[in-house]
Structure formats: structure tokens, C-alpha cells
């Protein structure tokens, strides 16, 4: 039994719902629960770049009478207040664990009050019992793609939606800035980012884009819905490393009928394409270094390829926080020669694996890095990151600049820990 002394209780789908909705302007979230639940959430937003949900997340302040009598009048009053005070386009009613247990029917309440409410009401009723947070993110993405996105008036030929980044996505500020920059090199622009810094209006008109770029597996369901409803194709994957970025640009460009000019690519490579060989000496060999990558699937796969191609390091172990949506995920890693893949291991299993591998390098979340406190090269690369801020937009992991940033950071860490070259 893993009682999570050194790790953390997995955030439930309830958190995924909050995080998936938090970047949508003109949308307010109203929890059915006691104020303590809402108040406590200030904590989890703090670890995501200290982003406050003030003016976004509300509680109806359920009390004992509501629980015993199954009353819903506080919720209805709170909906009315939000609707009339702030005039949002959407109010999302989110269940907490207590809602689920007392069996309050949020869908039924919406049927009753929708007609007298200006905002569109959506319900998220699982109350945190459906599974981990990625399920909540997927539910938000699917519901917005299905119930909010509208038939477009026109299709913008060089416009794309980025589907996947939400407030919980590690390094989203820098990665998004780099994706935007890469697309501009092609001559494309971002219609909306689903659901980071977007709005109800942008989601309503997201089907005017010509292509969806899915940056994490949790976005695949929504991309499929948008393809089915509006015929928008999608490309899935993140551009890691020089080779990965060139290939990503090529694929995206072909879908949009846009091509990267040779001069542009040359300029990018000159500025950001420096190889690790150019930054180290012959006595600083890296190919013997053992590495562990503990990140969500898309980052884990991207970083594995990146380390192999760009740094000549074959990661020994990949740790995933949940089972990826891609049913062939193991084959993907196996094809790269990586057979040691752990999924949501308990602390003991992870500690045993770390002791067995004795890595020089780990990419992971704050808890992984604490468990691996004797590993010399430790890089924050995943959520939760309670002791790490990634608010500045100049530290991407993806794209050409991501290649440059990661390689430079890695070499600096090597230089701070030269013993890794000796054992």
C-alpha cells in the first residue's frame, strides 16, 4: 500500500475539470460543495506558476442542511448571482465528492434553470471519482468541442488550433511561445489554444481553423470530435530536437500547403541548432550516462527521441504518470530500444528502479527529483512542480529554441557535475 509519504496522491478528474476550464475567458466555474474545497484549491493553483483563479472559480458554500435535505437552492442562487453580476457566456457546474455521494443531479438542475439563465450551463458531474486528472481534462475538451464549437462561417487557410495545453501543462508558457514562433516561420497563425488563454468566443469559432495540432494525448478525443463534426484534420505530437522540429514543420506545412524557406531554416539552425559536440570537449563524453525520464507520455516520448538523437544518450527508464491514450505506446518506446517503462509506480517500486539504474540524469516532477536527490543532473520537466516556476517564456523544451535551451542547460549541469564524466 503506497501511502504517499514521498510522493503525492494523484489529483482526480475533478482537478482536471478545473484546470481544463481555467484558461477559458467568459466562462465561470461554480463548484457544488463546501467552501473549504474551493478555498483549498488556492494551494494547487499556486504550484502552477502562482496562477490565481480569482474571478474564475466559485463555491456555492454547501452546508449541513443541503447535505441532509439534498437541497439545491444555494447552487441555484449562486448561478443566478454569477449570471446577473458578471454576465459570463458559460457557467460550468462542477461536482465535488460530496455532490456525488448525496446524488445531486446537476444535469437536472440545469434543465430546470437554463431557460432563465443567460449563460449557457454545462455540468461536470463525476465529483472526482472517475479517475485521474487527465480524465477531467479530456471531459472538458470533449464537451467544449462537442457543445460549444460551432459551424464556421469561413475556413481560415493558414490558421491552426493548438489542442492540449492547459494550466497544468509543464512549461506551457515557453512551449506555446515557441510553437507560435515556429508556426509564424511557416506563415501560419494560431486560431486558439485549447484551453490556455482562450475564450468562449474563440472556442465557438475554433472550427474556422484548417488544422488542429494536438500536443498531448488528452487532446486526441477533442481533435477527433472536431474532425468528425467539421472535417478538420489533426497532427499529433510535439517537436523535440532539431530533427523532430524539422519533421514537425514539414508535416504541418504540408497539411497547410506552406513550406519553410531554406534561408529561414538556415538562419534558425545557425542560431539555435548548436550540437552538444560544439559545447563540450572530447574528454566530456556523454554516451555512457544513464538517464531516467519521468514525464507524461508526450514529453517522455519527445525527450527520449531528443536525448538519443541530439545527445547520444539512451534513457534507461521511462516513468509515466498514467496509461497513455495511444494503445501502441509501449511499441513506440520499444522501437527506440527502451523496454523499461513503469506506469504510475508506487514509491517503493520507483526507489528500487532508481537504485538499480543509478542514473546520472533525471527529468521529472518535483517529487521525482526529491526521491532522486543523489542524482547529479536533475531537470524539472513535469507536473507537479511545487518548487519550480516556469512563467518566463524563454525556456522552451520544444522547437529549435527548445533544442538550444535544453542543450545549453544540460551542458551547464554537466560542467557543474564533472564527476559524471568519470564514472
Amino acid at each position, binding site marked *: *500500500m503506497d*501511502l*504517499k*509519504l*514521498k510522493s*503525492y*496522491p*494523484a*489529483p*482526480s478528474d*475533478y*482537478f482536471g475539470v478545473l484546470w481544463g476550464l481555467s484558461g477559458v475567458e467568459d466562462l*465561470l466555474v*461554480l463548484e457544488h460543495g*463546501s*467552501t*473549504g*474545497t*474551493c*478555498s*483549498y*484549491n*488556492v*494551494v*494547487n493553483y*499556486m*504550484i502552477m506558476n502562482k496562477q490565481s483563479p*480569482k*474571478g*474564475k*472559480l*466559485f*463555491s*456555492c*458554500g*454547501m*452546508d*449541513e442542511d*443541503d*447535505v441532509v435535505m439534498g437541497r439545491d437552492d*444555494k447552487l441555484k*442562487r*449562486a*448561478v*443566478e*448571482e*454569477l449570471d446577473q*453580476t*458578471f454576465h459570463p457566456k458559460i457557467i460550468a457546474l462542477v461536482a*465535488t*465528492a*460530496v455532490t*456525488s*455521494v*448525496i446524488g445531486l443531479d446537476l444535469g437536472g438542475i440545469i434543465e430546470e434553470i437554463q431557460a432563465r439563465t443567460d449563460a449557457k450551463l454545462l455540468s461536470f458531474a463525476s465529483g*472526482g*471519482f472517475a479517475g485521474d486528472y487527465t480524465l477531467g481534462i479530456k471531459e472538458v475538451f470533449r464537451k467544449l468541442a462537442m457543445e460549444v464549437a460551432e459551424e464556421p462561417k469561413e475556413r481560415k487557410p493558414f490558421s491552426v488550433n493548438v489542442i492540449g495545453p492547459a494550466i497544468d501543462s509543464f512549461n506551457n508558457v515557453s512551449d506555446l511561445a515557441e510553437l507560435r514562433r515556429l508556426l509564424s516561420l511557416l506563415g501560419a497563425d494560431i486560431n486558439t489554444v485549447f484551453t490556455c488563454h482562450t475564450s468562449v468566443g474563440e472556442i465557438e469559432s475554433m472550427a474556422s481553423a484548417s488544422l488542429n495540432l494536438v500536443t498531448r494525448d488528452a487532446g486526441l478525443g477533442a481533435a477527433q470530435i472536431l474532425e468528425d463534426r467539421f472535417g478538420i484534420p489533426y497532427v499529433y505530437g510535439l517537436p523535440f530536437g532539431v530533427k523532430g522540429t524539422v519533421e514537425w514543420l514539414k508535416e504541418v506545412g504540408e497539411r497547410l500547403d506552406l513550406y519553410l524557406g531554406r534561408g529561414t531554416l538556415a538562419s534558425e539552425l545557425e542560431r539555435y541548432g548548436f550540437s552538444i559536440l560544439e559545447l563540450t570537449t572530447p574528454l566530456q563524453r556523454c554516451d555512457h550516462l544513464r538517464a531516467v525520464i519521468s514525464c507524461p507520455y508526450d514529453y517522455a516520448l519527445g525527450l527520449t527521441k531528443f536525448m538519443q538523437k541530439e545527445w547520444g544518450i539512451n534513457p534507461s527508464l521511462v516513468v509515466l504518470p498514467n496509461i497513455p491514450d495511444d494503445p501502441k505506446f509501449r511499441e513506440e518506446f520499444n522501437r527506440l530500444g527502451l523496454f523499461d517503462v513503469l506506469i504510475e509506480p508506487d514509491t517503493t517500486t520507483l526507489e528500487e528502479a532508481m537504485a538499480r539504474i543509478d542514473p546520472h540524469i533525471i527529468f521529472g516532477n*518535483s517529487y521525482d527529483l526529491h526521491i532522486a536527490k543523489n542524482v547529479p543532473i536533475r531537470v524539472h520537466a513535469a507536473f507537479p512542480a*511545487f*518548487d519550480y516556476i516556469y512563467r518566463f517564456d524563454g525556456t522552451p523544451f520544444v522547437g529549435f529554441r527548445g533544442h538550444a535551451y535544453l542543450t545549453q542547460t544540460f551542458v551547464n549541469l554537466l560542467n557543474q557535475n564533472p564527476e559524471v564524466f568519470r564514472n
Partner: protein
Amino acid sequence: MKLDDISLEGKCLRLSEVVEDVALPKTADAQYPGSHCAFRTVAGILPLIKNSYGLLLGPAICLYNAKLTVNIRSLTSDPRPNNLLFLTYSQDDIIFGFHKKVREAILEVDRKYHPEVLFLVTTCLQEIIGEDFDASVEEIQRMVKARLLVIHTDNFTCEDAAPGIENVFLSLSELMEPQETVEGSINLLGFWTSKAKTTELARLLGSEGIKIKNAIPSYCSPEDLSRAPGVSLNIALDHFALKLAKKMKEMFGTEYIYCERPYHPDSIELWYQKIADASGIDLDLKVADLKRETEELISQAKGSFSGKSCALFGQPGRTLDMAFLLSELGIELKAIMLHRLLSDDYRDAQKLLAEGIDPLVFRGDNALQTEKLLSTLRPDICIGCRDYGVLARQGIEPCMLIPSHFKLGFEATNEILNLMRQEPAGFWALRYKEQLLNNGAV
């Protein structure tokens, strides 16, 4: 979201209109963030008990945030030991029961971590389902070495965290045993730091041969707690600890006095007098010296603060006595953020009203409404508000008094006077940025 859309009508009372021990009117039906829950506070207290673990039992909604809270605290000047363990409630547990899992977890914790005490903390969920934890714990107790203590923290039955905190204090009485009274020793109940023995109170008492034995709950071991009734006096410093003081009197005959933390020099003098009388010592001369120093500092500070206005957020102890201190400095009190008026608050309220000071009182647990109030009142200073962005935008000086919370008596007030002169590091830059933005820089 526009602040202008929020109405404050009917949500602000004058101090003279507030009734004792009744929660102030809610400022909104849709609240953000609303009051803390007991579970959150209890999860923050348990790491203070040495040689103990807390097994938190609940849905991931509560547990994930509890874990992050400990982690974030670990990065501060006042970290708490990592002694919290987590057992997550699933849908199946609701249907089929949680007892078996809890039992296995308790056995494992006992075997693996060997705690002297294991706190079992429930959330709203168990209370709603109605699982009888106390009965099953009695049964498991026979199988483990750790002393098991159940803490109930149902949030939906109360408007704040007080019942859960009181439950923690009361549970500690179960670790206590009858003792021979050691004259000249006291416990401080409700002092939340490890620094009790370096406070001014400790120094003054020590000079008269009185020793602070424990500051409960701060870094007491179960053994310390078992011997805690052997003091000649308990001093309950906050209302959360009062129930424990009463319980110890009832169970062990330990005498107690209840004296919440004061701020005004006259109140501190009386506070020391009460403690000295109960301890059978005379502190008058020493207290008079300290009081003179503080009054001198107040007199010097008047020049900086006189004529300014302020909004005051709830402070540990007697918030309204701090309001009195602020008025002594010549500061006009525009609003005080409180949840409810307790009995000591009521006496302090009468003192303020007698001086013609009748500020607005406002329930400060909803950030948007608080921001609206600040924007309406535009005080010069805001004491205790952490929303620096809002203060910078509105041109209000922030004042954060947390370092003074680790002190008692005149030294706490001296520290407050010192902190009130200091702008938090980085605030100048934040205000500069907000001013540029206000002027349309972007």
C-alpha cells in the same frame, strides 16, 4: 469580471451593529475562495506533533491539496515535518466500505514507521456516509503499538475551521496522564511556533523562576503531552485552545487562564498582570519598563502614520485590540475583516466604540468583494492582505505582520511597529509596473 458590477449593499456593517458570536453576513452566494475548512488546518497542525504521523482519509480533492500544502510549507522559513500519509477514497470504497483499507493502512503505518501516535483524519465524505470510524479504531487499537486518535473535520457542518482545530486540541488530552504538579511551570496552549521559550513572556516568567514547559501543540512529543498536566498553570492563548484548557482542568485539575494575545500597551500590561497574578509573581516593574519602551516607539511612529487610513484583516488573538493600537498611532480605521466577533472581541469593540471609533466590519473571505471594498474605501494602508497585485493597482501600502506572530507581549507590538515601516521587498517594482499599466503603457 468587473468590480463595478459587485454590490456591497447590505454586506457591510458598522462595528456598533455587529452581534457577538454570530458570523457576519455572507458577502456573496457564489464565493471565492470562501472560508478555510477544518481539514486543511488540521493537516497543517499534525506535523507539529513530534513522533506522530497523520493518516488522512478522504477523496483526492482534499488529499492532493493537503500534500501540496506541506510541500509548499517545506520551502519556507517555518517548514513542517513531512509526517502526513494519504489513503484515497474511491467510488468503490463508498459503496463497499472503507474500513478494511483503513485497517490495512493503520497496520502498515504501525509496522513501517513506528509512530508513537497516529492521527486518523476524516473529511466531509466519511461524515456524510456515516462510517463509524471511532468504533473500528477501538478494535484496531488492540493490534498496534501506536496510539490511535481520530480527528473529525466535517466542513459542511460549520462555517469555519474552528471545530476541527478544537478537535485536535481535545484529542491531545487523550495522551495526557495525571501528574504531580510541578510548581513554577506552565504550558502555553495555542502558540503555534517552536519559539515559545525565546519569547518575552518566557524571559519575564523565567526571571521569576517560572518555566514554560510546553507550547502546545508546537513540537510537543507524545511524552511531553502525557506529562503536560503536571504544570501549575495553563495559559490558553487562543480560543481554539480554550476547550483543551477546560478539559485538562476537568480531567486533571490543571488550573488555566484564558488570555488571548493583546496588542495595545495597556492591554499587554493587563495581560501580563493576569498571568502574573495567576502565577503568584510580581512583574509590575519589569512590565512597566517594557511598556515605556513600546510607548516611546509608538510616540515616534505617530509622526509617520498619523492621518493615514487603513483596512485591517483578522490577526491572531485580539484583532480589535490591534485596531485600538492603530488608532493610538493616529490611523483612521476604515474597515476590519472578520468572520465573527468572539467574547474578547466584543469587549474590545466596546472600547473602540467608547472612543468614537466605529469602522465598517466585513467578512473578508471572498476575494472579489474584499477587492471591491478596498477599491471603494481606498485606505492608505492594508494590514494582513496578501493580494499584493490588488494593493499595488489601487495604490495601497501593504503591511504583512507574520514575523510578529512568533512573538508575544510588548516585543510583538514592537515588531509590528517595525514591520509597518517596511515595505515588502519587491513591492516598489510591482507598484511601478501597475502604475505604468494604469497609465496605458500597454
